Structure formats: structure tokens, C-alpha cells
């Protein structure tokens, strides 16, 4: 009986959505132009331009109608994804117009022009969603077919190239190279919602799982292609100084987040002072870089300094981890938090002249390789590459290294033991796992990776300051790991990317960054504790829960975004 309502509701919702998209959305003119143009619908001449959200809504609406009537498996997930994507777009734009664009007048009928478009679209997506939730839950679709190796390689290649395209388009959605564009926030969020809907539908069809299983089968090939894709980024539309810096920063934090993922995601040890290890690495590298303000006036080759950073950070990791022998769970979290605070205090006070105190250690020399300064814009065979591209490559290398460490350890005797400790420490011990040693090893490995990342970070920024390694950074990293999905590499990368790209794209909301993090932590723990990209194991669990109607699935993807937008608009 409930299910009978699903079809008419989602069909009506989709139609209303399309109508809403076609209606005028605003009656005012903002800064340099109307938002978006009331009369013209630039559908296909500028698909990523100002009125792009209308295009997305039209597509989502049509998809809604099609999938309402065409028999597909797992219809509920398909329609839910479409509905949430549409809701995200309409709410974001509604809030933006109402918030930044002059209040309710802009979305109703000021100046005698009715402009209910956004409201109609919100209603449409709500009806669509309501209809979708009437459907019976289904287990996750699994595509089991295996193809010949060359076909799988081609599919993987296509998937990764599509991913690359998606990423660069996401970065430049609605604006280019960080030019201050007042619309960049809502356009970016609209695009993100649309991409989220697309991925949600693919997920419902089992395509994402299929591809990820495939990449699991061809791990080496996938890694090579992934690295090639990463190397290709500077040659795409984001190949400029601005995005090189941003992506390099994302890379450093992604590498650190993957390191933290070993400690938190695999071994289940909550580390709240993790960024301190990155700081230790940065200060060690700074002191060995020959910077004028450094305590040691020696300049070691970067590779030596980086290894030293990793080792020193690793030793500290072992020291900080050693209470794990006696202290469990929450108390361990406090020990690490206290350590992080001690590190901040001590480096703020310039202990032993090693940290430069509040002056930091500035002017860390730029790296150079074969005479090429890393900050310069090199020219390769007549092709002008953006500045900082060499740092970008270095950081790609760093991320690849960290992924290698994480992936190999996870799929080994040691990784299994870590997961066993996370699941049930007493039983792990009873099965012969030397839990103390392994927990310290987890801390040490994570700290070493953070130390390495810190060394790169110091050179990239050309300065090492205690201020970069405060508690908030630890929280951000933790949020990245949890948001992305504990225990997975793509999760940590996605988490780091979201948490460090969003503030760039949403610069007018930059002030709300931490507010959003805090809220995101709460919302994720409540609705999707396994994160956006769940571990393979946990994924299976989820599919299980979904059939009993427990999980809220896709909501968590869009909800924080929508809520953040709401906060920002308020």
C-alpha cells in the first residue's frame, strides 16, 4: 500500500522539479549580473556556467521520470540519489539567493515578477524523495561478471580518466583559477550535488563496486594509471599556479590523513595529537635545511633530511604510543591530546631554539633538482608548466608512497592483527597477537609517515611554524579520515580533498569552516559512521543493514553540505 504511492509521488516530484527548474529563480540583479539570468537559459552553450544548476535539475528530473517507470534493480537507491542530488542543488541555490541576494523578495514576487522557481524545485525534490522512501529497501546490487583482462584494463582506464575529468571539472566548477567569483560557492555545491547524484545512481547499479572490485583484481595496473592521472593534472584546465598550490596542499594532508588512518582506521586507536608528528617532521627538516633561522647551520640533501624527519617523528610516535601498553580507549585519546598540546606549547616557546617560537623558522630554502627550483615554472619541450608543479609531483610521489605503505601493511599479517585489535583486543591477544608491540608499531608507522609529510610541507611552505600544528589541525585530519571512511585509502584522500577544497571553493564561508567540521563529525557519527567510502567489509555490513531499513545511506553525503550552506546563508 505504501509502495503503491511511490510511483505516482516520485513521478509527480520529478515533473514538479523540471517545472521548477524552468521557472525564474530570482528577481534581482546581483553585482555584475542577474543571478541567474531570468530570461535566458544557457543550457548547452555554457554547461558549467551560471545557470548550470538548471541543466542539472532538468537532467535529474528527467532521470527521475525515467527510473520511476523503467524497471531497474534497487530503485529506492536510484531515486534516493536523484532526489537528494536535486534537493541539494535547489536548497543551496535557494539559500544563496535568499541569503546573499537580498532576502525573501528575491525568491518570491518582488518587482511584480514571480520567481518561485527555487521553491517549486525544493518542493519537487521533497516529493520525489518522499516517494522514493516509500519503496521497499533492497540489497546492494552486485555485478559479478568478469571480463578478459584487456577489457577490464580498458574499463579501468576509462573509469580513471572519467574520474580525472570529474575532479578537474569539480575544481573549476563555475569559476577558474581562484578568481574571486561571487557565485563560485553555490555553483560548486550545485555541481557537487549533481556529481553526488550521479555517483549514487552508479552505486545503486553496482557499477562503483564492480569497478572497485576490478581495480582490486588489477592493483598494480590501477596504481600506475592512478599515478599517471595524477601526473596528468597539471596539463589539464587546473594546470595553473593557484591549483597547483591547492592540490599540493591537499596531497600533503591526504598523505598525513592516510598515516592517521593506520592508527585510527586499522588499529582503532584514537590519536588526537597526530598533527604534532607532522610538526616534528617539519621542524626537523627545517633545521636541516640550512635556513638562516635554524638551530643547526647545515644543509642536508632533502632526501636525507626527509628520512631524518620520518625517523625522529617515528621515535616520538613510539614514545607517545607506549602508554597504549597500559592505557586503553578514551584514556589513550587523552594521552595523545595531551602530547599534542605539549608539543604546541613547547614549540611555541622555541625549546632549545629548535622551533623558532612565534617567529617560526622562515625562509626554508626552495628545493632544487638538477638546477630546477621547485617553485619556478619549468618548461618541458616548449610546454610551459605552471609554477610549483615540481612540488606537486613530489607530493604525488609522497602520496603514492604512503598509499603503498598503507595498502601493503593492511593486506598482511600485521594489518590483520591491527584490525583484530580494533575489533576485539582481548580476543586478539588470546589468539597470540602481541597487542602491545603492534599498537606501538601502528603509532610508529603513522608518525613516520606524518613526519615525512611534514618535511615536504615545510619546504613547500618555506616556513615551519608551531601555528600550523594546533589541535584544530588534528581535528581536521581526523574529520578527513572519518568523513572519507575509516580504514580505506580512497576514503582518506576524498576526506582530505573535501575538507581542504571546500574551504577554497566556499571562500565566502571560510569563516564557517570549523563550524562545518564540528557539525560534520556529529552528523557522520550519527548517520553514517562508516564514512562516505566504507571499508569493503563494512560495506557488506551496510548492505545488510539497508535491507532492514537501518541506514540512511546517501543522506550523509548531501546533508552536511546542505546544512553548511544553510548555516552560511543564515
Amino acid at each position, binding site marked *: 500500500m505504501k509502495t503503491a504511492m511511490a510511483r505516482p509521488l516520485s513521478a509527480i516530484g520529478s515533473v514538479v522539479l523540471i517545472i521548477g527548474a524552468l521557472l525564474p529563480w530570482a528577481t534581482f540583479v546581483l553585482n555584475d549580473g542577474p543571478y541567474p539570468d531570468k530570461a535566458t537559459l544557457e543550457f548547452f552553450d555554457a554547461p558549467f556556467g551560471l545557470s548550470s544548476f538548471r541543466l542539472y535539475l532538468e537532467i535529474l528530473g528527467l532521470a527521475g521520470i525515467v527510473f520511476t517507470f523503467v524497471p531497474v534493480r534497487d530503485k529506492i537507491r536510484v531515486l534516493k540519489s536523484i532526489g537528494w542530488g536535486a534537493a541539494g542543488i535547489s536548497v543551496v541555490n535557494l539559500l544563496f539567493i535568499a541569503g546573499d541576494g537580498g532576502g525573501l523578495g528575491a525568491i518570491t514576487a518582488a518587482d511584480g515578477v514571480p520567481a518561485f522557481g527555487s521553491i517549486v524545485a525544493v518542493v519537487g525534490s521533497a516529493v520525489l524523495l518522499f516517494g522514493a522512501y516509500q519503496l521497499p529497501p533492497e540489497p546492494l546490487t552486485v555485478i559479478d561478471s568478469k571480463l578478459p583482462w584487456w577489457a577490464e584494463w580498458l574499463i579501468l582506464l576509462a573509469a580513471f580518466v572519467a574520474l580525472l575529468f570529474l575532479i578537474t571539472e569539480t575544481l573549476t566548477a563555475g569559476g577558474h583559477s581562484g578568481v574571486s567569483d561571487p557565485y563560485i560557492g553555490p555553483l560548486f555545491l550545485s555541481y557537487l550535488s549533481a556529481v553526488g547524484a550521479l555517483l549514487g545512481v552508479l552505486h545503486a547499479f553496482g557499477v562503483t563496486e564492480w569497478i572497485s572490485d576490478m581495480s582490486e583484481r588489477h592493483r598494480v595496473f590501477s596504481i600506475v594509471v592512478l599515478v599517471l592521472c595524477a601526473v596528468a593534472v597539471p596539463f589539464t584546465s587546473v594546470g595553473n599556479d593557484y591549483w597547483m598550490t591547492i592540490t599540493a596542499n591537499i596531497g600533503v594532508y591526504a598523505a598525513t590523513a592516510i598515516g592517521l588512518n593506520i592508527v585510527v582506521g586499522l588499529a582503532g586507536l584514537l590519536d588526537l595529537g597526530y598533527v604534532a608528528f607532522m610538526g616534528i617532521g617539519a621542524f626537523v627538516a627545517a633545521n636541516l635545511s640550512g635556513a638562516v633561522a635554524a638551530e643547526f647551520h647545515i644543509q642536508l640533501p632533502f632526501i636525507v633530511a626527509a628520512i631524518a624527519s620520518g625517523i625522529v617523528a617515528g621515535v616520538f610516535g613510539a614514545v607517545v604510543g607506549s602508554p597504549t601498553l597500559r592505557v586503553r580507549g578514551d584514556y589513550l585519546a587523552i594521552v595523545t591530546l595531551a602530547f599534542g598540546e605539549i608539543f604546541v606549547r613547547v614549540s611555541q616557546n622555541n625549546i632549545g631554539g629548535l622551533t623558532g617560537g612565534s617567529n617560526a623558522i622562515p625562509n626554508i630554502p626552495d628545493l632544487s633538482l638538477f638546477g630546477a627550483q621547485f617553485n619556478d615554472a619549468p618548461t618541458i619541450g616548449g610546454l610551459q608548466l605552471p609554477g610549483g608543479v615540481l612540488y606537486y609531483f613530489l607530493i604525488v610521489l609522497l602520496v603514492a608512497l604512503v598509499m603503498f605503505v598503507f595498502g601493503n601493511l593492511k593486506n598482511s599479517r600485521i594489518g590483520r592483527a591491527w584490525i583484530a585489535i580494533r575489533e576485539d583486543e582481548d580476543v586478539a591477544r588470546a589468539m597470540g*597477537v602481541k597487542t602491545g608491540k603492534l599498537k606501538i608499531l601502528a603509532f610508529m608507522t603513522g608518525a613516520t609517515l606524518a613526519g615525512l609529510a611534514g618535511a615536504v610541507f615545510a619546504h613547500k611552505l618555506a616556513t615551519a611554524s608551531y601555528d600550523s600544528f594546533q589541535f584544530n589541525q588534528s581535528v581536521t585530519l581526523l574529520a578527513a579520515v572519518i568523513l572519507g571512511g575509516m580504514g580505506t585509502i580512497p576514503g582518506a584522500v576524498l576526506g582530505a580533498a573535501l575538507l581542504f577544497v571546500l574551504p577554497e571553493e566556499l571562500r565566502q564561508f571560510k569563516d564557517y569552516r570549523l563550524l562545518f567540521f564540528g557539525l560534520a563529525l556529529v552528523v557522520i557519527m550519527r548517520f553514517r559512521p562508516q564514512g562516505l567510502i566504507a571499508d569493503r567489509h563494512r560495506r557488506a555490513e551496510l548492505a545488510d543493514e539497508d535491507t532492514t531499513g537501518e541506514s540512511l545511506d546517501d543522506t550523509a553525503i548531501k546533508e552536511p553540505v546542505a546544512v553548511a550552506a544553510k548555516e552560511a546563508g543564515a
Partner: protein
Amino acid sequence: MTPVLQARDVSMVFGGLAALKNVSLDLDEGKIVGLIGPNGAGKTTFFNCLTGLYTPTTGQVLLKGDPLPGDPAAVTDAGVARTFQNIRLFPSMTVLENVLLGRHVRMKQGPLSSLFHGPAFRRGEAAARDRARELLAFVGLGKVEDELSRNLPYGDQRRLEIARALATDPAVLLLDEPTAGMNPQETEAARQLIFRIRDTGVSVVVIEHDTKFIFTLCDRVSVLVQGELLVEGTPDEVRGDPRVVEAYLGKPPEEVEAELQAVQEGEQS
């Protein structure tokens, strides 16, 4: 011949309260020993002493003549494996991974080897997988190795726990209520499984409530009451002992007699 596992006058005191008083137990190689007793008799405490989770207040536990190490991990390494009364698998690991984890102590790859996945690592990993699959087939879980352990039916979870324990190549296997919550068919399957484990040369200690199960399974049976060893002997001796009937079963003798009669008939048929 020295017993493979021997408890000598083990006592355990918690905050002035004696949970165990001078309990002794001998387990000969290739035998099955049962441990029964009413709730709170100290069976699980005794088990924890045998697995190194508790260090006895007085007395000692010998494995093949040597004192048991003080740490559960080392005890497992030395050759004592156990299962848990309330099944404790690693819920979000697959069936195969659970067994592989049991293989942990018998694998030698250190951090560096695990990091670089060299040829030796791959050989070791492949051997462990083979052994794990062999054990899964042995307990009858050959077809579900990629399932999450938490999704298995109850009886299969019990069997998986046994496979995980066997993966440590134990000399002694301790089973804590292996048939709790099972129906008669499953109980019978469990009995056969334990016999087969015994036949591979592993000595077994079983805690159980189900006296019928114990009497038809074990070579020797010990009865614990209020932390003390009441009776020790063959199933027939224990079954016939009036003290057991009174202290453990706590029922009028006639009723118990009838029950025991039923057990004997069940055996014959």
C-alpha cells in the same frame, strides 16, 4: 607419560574471595577431558588460568612439563588455543580472515616483509591461506570464506571459532561451552567434530552444561563445585557418584537417575 596439560593445585583469589581452591587437572595427549559444574562454580575462571589470562594466586599450570607463560599471547604461541563461551569472532572480518588471524602466531613475516611483499612474504601468505582453507573445509565452512563472520548462522560461528583456534596449531584446545544454544542435530555435529579434532592429535578440554554431551564425549570428567574439585574420573565413575548427583544436579536422585538412564539408552541406540 607426562600429561600434555597439567594444573597443579590452582587457586585463584579475587579480593579475598576464593574463586578456585586447589583445583588439579591432568590432560593426557590425544584425550578429551570434560569440565562440568553448576553456574558460578569457577569453570570459566579455571579456563582463564589455563589460557594465561589469569595468573593463579597459588599453584601452577604446566604445558608439556613447562610452566605456562604469563601472557595470553605467549600461551597461544606455546600451544594452547581456546574458544569463548559467548562467541567472540572479529565481526567485520571475513570468515577466511578470522582463520588467518588465528594463523598469526605461526607466520613469521615482520614489519619490513609485510611492507614490501617480497617473494618470501607471498609464499608465507599463500601457505597460510592454504592452511586456513584446509581448516575451514575441516570444520565444514569451505563455501563461505568470503562472508563476514557476523553474518554466519549461530552454529557456523561456533565452528568458525574452532577453526580459528585450530589455526594456531595448538597442542591443547579449550572449548568453552561449544554446544550452548545448539539443537540436537548441531550438537551431534559438534560432537563428531570434536572427535575428529582429537583424532588429529589435539588434546581437548571442554566446559559444558549439557551433561549428556559431556558423558558421551569425554575420556575423563572433572566436576567443579564452588571452586573446588568434587569428583574426577571416567564418565561412568562420575555419573555414578552420588555426590555429583546431589551437589551438581541438585535434583531428587530418582529424577536424575531417570535422566541418566535416558542418557545410557541414548548411547546404546
